[in-house]
């Protein structure tokens, strides 16, 4: 028997249900733990008849600061206002506007990633987040693929690092 009290689902022995290892990953097991109050032990009960669901195409996702599946460019604030683009259809760089679909992006609600219109792959920090280089890659919604737009910056949801032009150099083809 379980009780829902103050954001915890608890039993009479004082254990609570929790996300295993505290990792916010898809398919993560849910387990029983001694209560420690951390966020991975906290839950909301939202009744189905009150659940608003997620934003659909054209609606604004306020948590991510982006409209769902509404195409956009990413324009650098450096003086020449170059556009976020790809070289070798893989690695992210800044380039002058050229009309290619590699410069067109959209927010994909189901995966919570930003995708390219070129081949629908997602923004990705290389090597599963162990480097600083950006690329596009098959969508897996790992933490290294999830970004929000806030205060004119694209911020990784997990480590709070921001999208940055390498060295601040406003040069054609400079990596991001």
């Amino acid at each position: 028997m379980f009780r829902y009290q103050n954001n915890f689902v608890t039993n009479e022995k004082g254990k609570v249900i929790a996300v295993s290892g505290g990792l916010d990953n898809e398919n993560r097991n849910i387990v029983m733990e001694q209560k420690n109050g951390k966020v991975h032990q906290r839950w909301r009960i939202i009744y189905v008849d009150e659940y608003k669901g997620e934003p659909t195409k054209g609606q604004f996702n306020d948590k991510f600061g982006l409209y769902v599946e509404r195409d956009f460019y990413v324009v650098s604030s450096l003086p020449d206002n170059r556009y976020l683009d790809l070289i070798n259809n893989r690695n992210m760089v800044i380039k002058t506007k050229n009309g290619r679909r590699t410069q067109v992006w959209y927010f994909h609600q189901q995966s919570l990633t930003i995708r390219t219109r070129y081949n629908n792959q997602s923004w990705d920090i290389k090597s599963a987040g162990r480097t600083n280089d950006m690329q596009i890659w098959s969508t897996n919604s790992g933490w290294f693929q999830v970004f929000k737009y806030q205060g004119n910056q694209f911020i990784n949801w997990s480590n709070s690092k921001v999208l940055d032009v390498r060295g601040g150099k406003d040069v054609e083809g400079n990596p991001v």
Partner: protein
Amino acid sequence: MYLDKAKPDQTKGLNTEFGMHCNRPFYLVSRLPMKRVAEMLGGTNITLKRYVKNRLAQKWSFDCVSKTVRSEQWKNYVMDIQNNGNSNNFRTVSSKNSRWW
């Protein structure tokens, strides 16, 4: 207790002792940033998953009679701690017994 004097079982409304509404389907939503929900997998384990509209395996409801939380997909399955509560594994079982685990 004579049957004609017994209070009827609660079948709707908030059960204040357990903090859940009776027989009203709900999502169990994690407070972690991605707001994933608890989903029953293949009739046993419960895992964290992205919300999918109308996926019954993500819906749960509180049965005020047995005091258990049951799956809306497999309605005879209820939340349970494996090994009579001696494990940390949280899952669902069909052998509802209303014991503390």
